[in-house]
């Protein structure tokens, strides 16, 4: 009996059988689990914004001249008080950023516009290396 056990643990016993059926069952369970839970990974990014304190909102009525003011409206944008389309805004912002990337960008977003459109603007600022961004609330 002793001899038999030794042989078994020495790994020389050819009698050891792995019953395949339960293993296949489990492997299929795992496979199904992975298929169901599979989701592609997303690389996340972040867009820093600075917020003027709520009571400071009144002071920002007359922004200094070296400030880029962008208004995000429900359908369309305005830069420094001029209504522009998507492409025009891109060109203008590029030109303004070429002057200096230290300028403050003041983004004013309409309540009814989608968040995605605000992020588009912030993305555009990031692309032009403008990092001083303030998002204002209000109409």
């Amino acid at each position, binding site marked *: 009996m002793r001899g038999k056990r030794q042989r078994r643990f020495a790994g020389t016993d050819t009698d050891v059988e792995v019953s395949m059926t339960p293993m296949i069952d489990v492997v299929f369970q795992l496979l199904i689990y992975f298929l169901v839970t599979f989701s592609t990974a997303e690389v996340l990014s972040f867009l820093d914004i600075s917020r003027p304190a709520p009571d400071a909102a009144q002071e920002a009525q007359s922004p200094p001249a070296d400030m880029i003011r962008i208004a995000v409206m429900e359908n369309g944008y305005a830069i420094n008080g001029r209504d522009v389309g998507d492409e025009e805004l891109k060109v203008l912002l590029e030109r303004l950023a070429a002057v200096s990337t230290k300028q403050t960008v003041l983004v004013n977003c309409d309540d009814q516009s989608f*968040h995605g459109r605000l992020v588009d603007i912030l993305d555009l600022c990031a692309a032009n290396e403008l990092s001083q961004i303030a998002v204002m609330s209000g109409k």
Partner: protein
Amino acid sequence: MTPMIDVVFQMIIFFVCTAQLEREQFSEWINLPNSPNAPEMAQEKDPRTITIEVDDKGKITIGRTPLSVSKLQKILTKAVSDYGVHGPSIPIQIRADHASRHANVKRVMDICTASGLYKIAFIAVKDDLE
């Protein structure tokens, strides 16, 4: 052989489940906006970071718990006072749906600033690996 396979599978399942936990704390129904030019998010973030989610209907949640505006205000005010001097520098990350109205996002930002928090960032998708 059979007990070993059992144990190995148990371990595989355990690791798979625990690896998923980090992702589970966020709602999967939020479609983040795309921002290919924004800086990539650091792997190690500030452990104090509070992630606030805003879905397309304006519902505010933290870690899958829906919150009312006043509740959020209370939580943030408490977080700020708990950290004392370092309170106002707690980073806030807003995961807002791209189809959410700005008013909903603004409400969250206003509460943050009212609590004294100023480090606010929006989360977006840099690169979709699909």
